[in-house]
């Protein structure tokens, strides 16, 4: 088991955005996280990646208790993350964005930086090579030198993905990876995601487009009002009465 949350809860004021969620993800799976708007999906992702502290409960990743860790440490342990709002390094070019994300593989010591040591140079060469590979991998070669802020929305999302890969994550959290994309961009992104998965990463993705999730994921977790209301394979979840009620209200049991 790669990731496990136990009784994960987070309050905002008096409201529980995430309430007592028990979840587990095994290595190599693609798990989808779905639920109506405001169900707490992004909050859950924020908790797992360390950007929010839980009010109670715990998160165990790869044997480590990451419940109280700062976000950058989550990244160092192997939890990578893409954002819904795509924070990018706007003034950097596409290529520079990816290179900058290779921080963990870089020599950032004062000594190395100042004296251009062999170790520093070696790591630099490595990073540049890997950055090129990432660039190819997600198909952004043409816009390599375009400034981050000038990229169209779809490309920015894919860039976010390429950058997240730089931390060589064991678990990759994707928050609405194809949100706001047209069909072509979405195909590009999905292809990239599948290849990331094929490369050995475990993926947890939050997505509104339920059909995409159904087609892509091994398992699906459904959340509503902060609670887990269903879990299982796509078929199981599809037929689940509670899930249907959550999305459509009333009784529409298929």
């Amino acid at each position, binding site marked *: 088991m790669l990731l496990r949350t136990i009784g994960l809860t987070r309050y905002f004021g008096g409201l529980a955005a995430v309430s007592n969620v028990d979840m587990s993800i095994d290595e190599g799976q693609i798990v989808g996280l779905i639920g109506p708007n405001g169900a707490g999906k992004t909050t859950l992702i924020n908790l797992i990646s360390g950007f929010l502290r839980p009010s109670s409960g715990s998160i165990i990743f790869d044997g480590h208790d990451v419940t109280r860790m700062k976000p950058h440490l989550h990244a160092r342990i192997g939890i990578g993350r893409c954002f819904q709002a795509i924070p990018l390094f706007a003034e950097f070019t596409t290529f*520079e964005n990816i290179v*900058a994300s290779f921080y963990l593989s870089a020599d950032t010591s004062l000594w190395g930086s*100042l004296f251009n040591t062999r170790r520093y140079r070696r790591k630099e060469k490595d990073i540049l090579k890997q950055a090129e590979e990432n660039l190819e991998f997600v198909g952004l070669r043409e816009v390599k030198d375009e400034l981050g802020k000038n990229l169209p929305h779809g490309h920015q999302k894919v860039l976010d993905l390429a950058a997240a890969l730089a931390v060589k994550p064991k678990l990759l959290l994707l928050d609405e990876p194809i949100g706001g994309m047209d069909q072509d961009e979405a195909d590009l992104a999905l292809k990239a995601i599948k290849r990331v998965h094929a490369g050995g990463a475990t993926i947890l993705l939050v997505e509104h487009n339920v059909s995409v999730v159904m087609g892509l994921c091994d398992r699906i977790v459904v959340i509503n009002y902060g609670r887990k209301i269903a879990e299982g394979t796509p078929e199981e979840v599809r037929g689940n009465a509670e899930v249907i009620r959550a999305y459509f209200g009333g009784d529409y049991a298929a």
Partner: protein
Amino acid sequence: MKRNRVSGFGIVGVIVLLSLAPLFLESYYLHLAILVFIYVMMTSSLRTIYISGQMSLGHAASMAIGAYTSAMLAKHLGWPMWFTMPLGGLAAMIVGVLVGLPFSRLRAIYFSMASLFFGMMVTTLVALAPEWTGHYAGLPAIPRLFGFSKVPYYYFFLALVLLTLLILYRLEHSRLGMTVKSVAQSYLAASSRGINERGIRILSLGIGGFFAGIAGAGYAHYAGFIAPESFGVMPSIFLLVYLLAGGKGSFAGPIVGTAVLYLIPYAMAGFEGYAPFFQAAALFAVLYLIPDGIVGLPRQIMSWVRRLRDRKKAEYAA
């Protein structure tokens, strides 16, 4: 990211010229040069902090810390200046880090406000131990580095500023520098890639503080006299003005900005009082007309010329 490619030969040429300057410059001009060197160190170290996304309005305080630490240790305890000066830098760096611990949590405006207050606070600290600090009137009779002639000072500060610039340049153009710049652009993205963005900001404050402290200590042992008002709010603000007017986007920005703006009052013999108007005017020019600062002037002029030419062409065609 725009990079200013000044040719290597150009820089070497400038350095050679500067090294030969004492041969044909009078003492007064050497004095001005020394001051410019010192303030270039200050402005460049301010930029080091700036590129991490923090706009400090209290940088002169770091200079004060370095100056007073070194001055007091040398004057009252008789310690050798070659020892007290690095200590001054170290003191400023430590304070920078200590202050950075809480301050790095603050976002843009709040940080600027806090740094403003902090800068002010430091200048009021002189009143706490007046026998040591000389109170608001200043600390006189600080041991000086060399004798009467300006020439050794000139070379000393030339070497110091070149060394500082070299170090800062290498740091900024290294992977570390890129990391710092990335933190300024998006702390979310940076964190998720494993970058300890708070740590980076604190580091920038430390490094920036260190060089400011060294500059301050150097100044103390050159002038032989320091007073709190040289390190207060207005000096901090002017440092920022030099940085922004020169061009915050490039490494050469603070150098050019300081060299040009700092000397304006000296160039206006008899009318020094009006000098700040020109400095402010330079600032406004940068704000409204040349966002890249003085360093970006050539490029800006080129783009104006080009636009003018295009418009002429369009009129011709129509």
